[in-house]
């Protein structure tokens, strides 16, 4: 027994590897930190402030700024201005959307809306209100004034003005019909400056714009027509189911075509 202990095996020696590797761990940690900081400083777009009359439904750190359905920024803080008249919404834009921070960009808050004949912003009921933007092309700026509603897009279309004695059931987004086909819609209704007429701003789709001539006749197509004739019997007509609720405008053009109406032409209703 005693002899065996004298012939104990010798342990082998080996090079210890990976000792130099040890200091890569703090270095990697530092690199990761640097990457985080880089993401915060370099890979982040500009911070802009948008002033709204009412920031209802927006949440700090929470609500998004979207353009074409894509998130382009996040709301950082909501603050009341000094004079308590507005809410300053501080938005952190993504790098990809840095060009949004230009003069002429228009911001508005998208809320769920339930209008007759049109429902919009349904997504916001679930996902919360968000800020939408229409980009501008001016100089760089970081301060914007938000608008209340989505701006009317300057699309290719014929805008005409109709003068009516009274509004009846017309409202924005009421349809405009030609032979029963919807060719446009009402954009805006308001009283004229002297309050003697109602101004109805209507937009005819570009495709149908040639139908509107200087001698076209417009009439209110809302509601129900009820005729009772001796020989024809009772006759109940309505332009469409939609006009029953939201009103509508119809027009016809006499066979003797006059020149095509231009933007801003005034017709009487």
């Amino acid at each position, binding site marked *: 027994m005693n002899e065996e202990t004298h012939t*104990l*095996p010798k342990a*082998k*020696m080996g*090079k210890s590897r990976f000792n130099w590797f040890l200091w890569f761990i*703090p270095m990697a940690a530092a690199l990761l930190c640097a990457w985080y900081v880089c993401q915060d400083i370099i890979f982040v777009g500009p911070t802009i402030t948008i002033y709204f009359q009412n920031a209802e439904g927006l949440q700090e*750190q*929470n609500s998004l700024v979207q353009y074409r359905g894509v998130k382009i920024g996040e709301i950082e803080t909501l603050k009341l201005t000094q004079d308590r008249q507005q809410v300053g919404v501080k938005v952190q834009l993504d790098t990809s959307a840095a060009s949004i921070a230009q003069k002429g960009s228009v911001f508005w808050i998208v809320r769920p809306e339930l209008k007759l004949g049109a429902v919009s912003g349904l997504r916001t009921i*679930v*996902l919360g209100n968000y800020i939408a933007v229409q980009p501008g092309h001016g100089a760089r700026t970081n301060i914007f004034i938000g608008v209340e509603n989505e701006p009317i897009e300057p699309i290719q279309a014929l805008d005409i003005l109709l003068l009516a004695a009274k509004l009846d059931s017309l409202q924005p987004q009421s349809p405009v019909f030609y032979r029963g086909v919807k060719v446009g819609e009402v954009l805006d209704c308001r009283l004229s400056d002297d309050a003697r007429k109602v101004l109805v701003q209507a937009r005819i789709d570009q495709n149908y714009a040639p139908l509107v001539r200087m001698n076209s006749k417009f009439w209110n197509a809302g509601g129900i027509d009820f005729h009772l004739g001796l020989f024809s019997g009772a006759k109940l007509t309505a332009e469409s189911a939609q006009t029953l609720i939201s009103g509508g405008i119809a027009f016809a053009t006499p066979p003797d075509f006059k020149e095509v109406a231009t933007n801003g032409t005034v017709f009487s209703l």
Partner: protein
Amino acid sequence: MDKLVACQTCGLIQEVDDVPKDSVIKCARCNFQIFHRRVNSRARTLAFSLAALILYFPSNIYPIITADYQGQHVQTTIFQGIRSLFERHQYFIGSLMFCTSILTPVLKIIGLIFITLTLDWTCWKKTRTWIFKVIRIIDPWNMLEVFLLAICVSMVELGEVATVHPGRGVFAFAACVVLTLLATLSFDSRLLWDSPEEKKHYE
């Protein structure tokens, strides 16, 4: 130093010559590494705790939980989570979370760094021992960090329409936890009371 070593793997008792620096001993039979002390303890502990300290900051600054809940896009850092616990009068869980995920890790990391850095100093020996005692006391509480994610998830009140996914800071946080663990594991407490020449040998 000690001439006889038993292999931790196969139990073979063997003789060991003097070990030069930057080399390791291997068992004559099973070729596994054998050691008296934890290998390279001081440098390892320092490296791991430095890395943990570096990652401690992003793990607390950046959100570790991102939740989409009923259209709300919530990002929560550890500290915000604790604050919201306090706001809901969950003082016990809140302070427990504060201790386990903010206070004790940083105490432990700084303590380990202090010990490993000042190991050569002849003075402050008692302080080092005391710090090590404190580290040993708070060590089990550190392990609660593992449950932090579970607490966070329950904190955002998982509903049917909620999706919870890890935020940016979660990698730093996990790495910080693992590195702290490794730092404690690689620290050999015998370093604390080694005599100067033992120190030369074992560091």
